[in-house]
């Protein structure tokens, strides 16, 4: 899957970019480079691209992983692990989708929020 076309409401960290620190924002984020630290995107989505290497705790509305993510994931809505995903950490979310071939080392905890 190629990187999404840049547009309004989607921030991108490209393949050659390395970021260390706390990332937060109020728009969706696509990471195809390296991120180390924390990622907080309450109400928005994080996508870790196929080249992405994230070593961070993640808090977001939705998380899609195609690359590597080391850290705990808290998603208020949904987590998707694509077949190339390598995830080490605990996942807490309302819904989860895991493709055949994805690798997970950690816990999956599903919590339903009352409507």
């Amino acid at each position, binding site marked *: 899957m190629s990187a999404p076309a840049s547009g309004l409401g989607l921030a991108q960290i490209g393949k050659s970019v390395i970021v260390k620190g706390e990332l937060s924002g109020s728009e969706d984020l696509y990471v195809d480079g390296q991120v180390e630290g924390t990622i907080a995107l309450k109400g928005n989505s994080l996508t870790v691209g196929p080249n992405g290497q994230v070593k961070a705790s993640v808090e977001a509305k939705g998380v899609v992983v195609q690359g590597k993510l080391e850290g705990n994931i808290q998603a208020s809505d949904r987590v998707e692990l694509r077949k190339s995903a390598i995830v080490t950490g605990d996942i807490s979310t309302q819904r989860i989708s895991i493709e055949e071939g994805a*690798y997970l080392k950690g816990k999956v905890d599903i919590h339903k929020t009352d409507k």
Partner: protein
Amino acid sequence: MKLFRGSSGTETIPVQGAQKLTRRSSGLGELSRMWESAEDLCILDLGSTSPANIRHFTEHGHRIYSEDLLTASTDPELLGKNEEGSVVLDSRKFLADNLVYPAARFDVVLCWNLPDYLDESLVKPVVGRLWSVLKPGGMLLAFFHTRDAGPDSPCHRFHIVGTDVLEMQKIVLRREARRGPTGAIHTAISEGFQLQRVFNNRHIETLFRDFASIKFFLARDNIREVLVVR
């Protein structure tokens, strides 16, 4: 106990084999009666990451931990030499990096066929660690080949598809892709993990001697299912 020394010696990125078989599992059936009537259990699945298993347990309201120990055991950094100069795996390092949980955490541990395919140097340390991470009364399910199995018995991953039904999928490993002399990338597909040994009943009882009880289920496909209680 029959030993089949050696490892597959391949890069360990499991590739999903196309063929899937189903088998009835008495051990799984007994466990299912327990987790279908209980709430918020903590389950440890030591096989390859299985979307089906994760879905099964989360839909029942349980928490599931997934940790592929067989793949983890092929980490090249575990290799070392013993006093005789033979290559062995460093069980201390293995347990420092894997199965790291607070004591008495799990209600159920699903070992599947792990003991049959795990390197000799890791089997007892891993079983010892599993004892400590199981709650008192917690249960562990493991599958063992009977003596009719040969060293070519394929290694499978197991998906729960029913109360007592498993789907078995042969594990095929892929060698690391290398660039050949013409510049083309070559990726050789090799057979999966090699059966390391065949336990007899006495050896299985010895392996789990620290557990409170052990129950055997013999199936027609020459697999012995073992359910132990901590």
